[in-house]
């Protein structure tokens, strides 16, 4: 029987796993295969349940924080600080009538919200919560995340098509424009931490656990700030949140793909969306912010769970912050921003990182992880400066051209430009700048 010590208190989950394996395998004498099956099933149940319970809290958090951003209180009636509001909402959704519109494709219509939730929960299988605490440490973990996210796109299309509603169909069309396009720079940006992880000595640089272990000395956000920004921005587009919430833009297409859904099926879409929003924060924390790495995690592996969730909730705060601050991007700006800005930048960042990493490994072999990270940070900073300078020139030329066309003496036009630049995100300004010369 595995001995219980103070050490095992710090590594409680792994200890309990060992204990259960011992009880089933040695005490009950079950064959290896059955024990493995039971352990895997337990892992699935635990991870999926934890993942499903998170939105109950994050929805409350989001409403509360967004409320503060808009100078109001947010939910404050049900329970202390309104904490039980989400549970009340779930009860309400469960009690609502379940309507299937006439002419809807019933099987596809009912399958779509299910697939949307499954596609998000499946990502949690490869998220490392601490040393030795991971559902499945597969050696193509990052690629698995990308593959599973693609299923969510299909779920949205299924829901939009089967509802037999023109607004739902329009919402589904926008998924192609948005989700599929933004997947391109996201995958390219994800290649950069893989390259760096292999430079830091990871043997399987695409495994999520080894990516976290490789960040023991220095987080990847230092070594690849550009990739982190790209991944975070494209991820916000992937979850369809403001400023990229064109899939369900209320003022344009009512509610987009889930317009016909009621009751708990609508609840499933919401669940999938909020869980996905938190999942990309966890992924950002795992890939760029060191995952479960933190002080004392080697003595007390349970601390890793705390570190991971602390980093994830910080990123979630940033997501809410972005959502409450930025207005929705127009659809043509959204596409130009992706294809004319994010894709070229991600490709350049990938090539530059690969070359710089290889050059440092070749000519400066003794500088270690931290030295490499500092070198890559400098390279990234130069690259970012060059990109900003390039965009500024393009924007100046575009403005000069526009002023030459419309006449420069127009009163108020300059001031208007200032205002719109102040409101727009830097990316939107960049998209507008890159878009303008095309006309």
């Amino acid at each position, binding site marked *: 029987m595995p001995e219980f010590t103070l050490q095992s208190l710090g590594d409680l989950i792994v200890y309990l796993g060992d204990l259960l394996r011992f009880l089933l395998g040695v005490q009950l004498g079950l064959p290896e*295969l059955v024990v493995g099956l039971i352990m895997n099933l337990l892992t699935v149940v635990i991870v999926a349940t934890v993942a499903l319970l998170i939105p109950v809290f994050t929805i409350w958090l989001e409403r509360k924080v967004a409320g503060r951003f808009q100078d109001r209180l947010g939910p404050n009636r049900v329970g202390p600080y309104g904490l039980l509001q989400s549970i009340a909402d779930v009860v309400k959704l469960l009690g609502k009538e379940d309507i299937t519109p006439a002419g809807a*494709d019933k099987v*596809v219509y009912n399958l779509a919200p299910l697939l949307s939730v499954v596609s998000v929960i499946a990502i949690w299988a490869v998220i490392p919560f601490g040393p030795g605490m991971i559902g499945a*440490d*597969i*050696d*193509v973990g990052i*690629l*698995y995340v*990308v*593959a*599973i*996210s*693609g*299923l969510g*796109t*299909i779920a949205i*299309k*299924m829901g939009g*098509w089967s509802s037999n509603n023109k607004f739902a*169909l329009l919402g*589904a*069309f926008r998924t*192609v424009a948005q989700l*599929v396009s933004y*997947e391109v720079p996201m995958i390219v940006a994800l290649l950069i931490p893989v390259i760096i992880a292999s430079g830091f000595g990871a*043997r*399987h640089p695409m495994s999520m656990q080894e990516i976290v272990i490789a960040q023991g000395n220095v987080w990847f956000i230092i070594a690849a700030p550009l990739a982190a920004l790209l991944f975070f921005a494209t991820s916000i587009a992937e979850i369809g949140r403001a400023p990229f919430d064109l899939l369900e833009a209320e003022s344009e297409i009512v509610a987009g793909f889930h317009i016909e859904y009621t009751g708990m099926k609508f609840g499933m879409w919401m669940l999938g969306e909020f869980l996905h929003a938190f999942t990309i924060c966890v992924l950002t924390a795992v890939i760029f912010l060191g995952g479960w790495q933190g002080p004392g995690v080697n003595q007390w592996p349970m601390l890793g769970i705390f570190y991971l969730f602390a980093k994830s909730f910080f990123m979630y705060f940033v997501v809410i912050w972005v959502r409450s601050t930025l207005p929705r991007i127009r659809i043509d700006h959204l596409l130009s921003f992706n294809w004319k800005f994010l894709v070229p930048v991600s490709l350049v960042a990938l090539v530059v990182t690969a070359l710089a990493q290889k050059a440092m490994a070749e000519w400066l072999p003794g500088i270690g992880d931290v030295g490499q990270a500092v070198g890559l940070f400098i390279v990234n900073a130069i690259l970012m400066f060059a990109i900003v300078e390039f965009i500024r020139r393009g924007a100046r030329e575009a403005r000069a051209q526009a002023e030459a066309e419309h006449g420069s003496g127009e009163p108020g036009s300059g001031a208007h430009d200032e205002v719109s630049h102040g409101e727009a995100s830097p990316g939107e300004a960049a998209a507008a700048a890159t878009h303008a010369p095309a006309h």
Partner: protein
Amino acid sequence: MDISQIIFLIVATATLISALMVVTTRNLVHGALWLIVALFGVAVVFVLLEAGFIAVVQVVLFIGAIAILIIFAMMLTRRALSDEPHQTNSQWPISALVAAASFVALTGLTSFLPDWQWPSLAASDSAQLSGNLQQLGYALVQPNQFALPFQVASVLLIVALIGAVAVAGEKK
């Protein structure tokens, strides 16, 4: 019978059934969704063959990109789909013949080739798997292995990309 063989039989049956549904279902969008199930089944077979990388790439490329584009193209033509009563046109005997011939050729090739062995379904450790992935990467850039076919495929893709832009681009 091994447990992985049982899993293989179940997955293979499901894949074949959904592949059959792709060509027999009346609704084209349903056909595309069955195609996704079939492609997913093929990915699971790749996992059983211990080609984890190929399995994931199968899902990324075929389900994440190609199937989505197929569905998208079909969604644009919804009205035309529902009124279409015929599933086959006059060329079905020829295509059936070609399909049967390629099936016979492939099975014949794999059965009678002297050194051919069916891949084993036995489990191995993940270290070897990663070795396979690295070997795959090196093999694609080694001049005496697959560098030439790899480059030819890339050139083909670039030609297709440029062609697509040329066809879709605005005429000046």
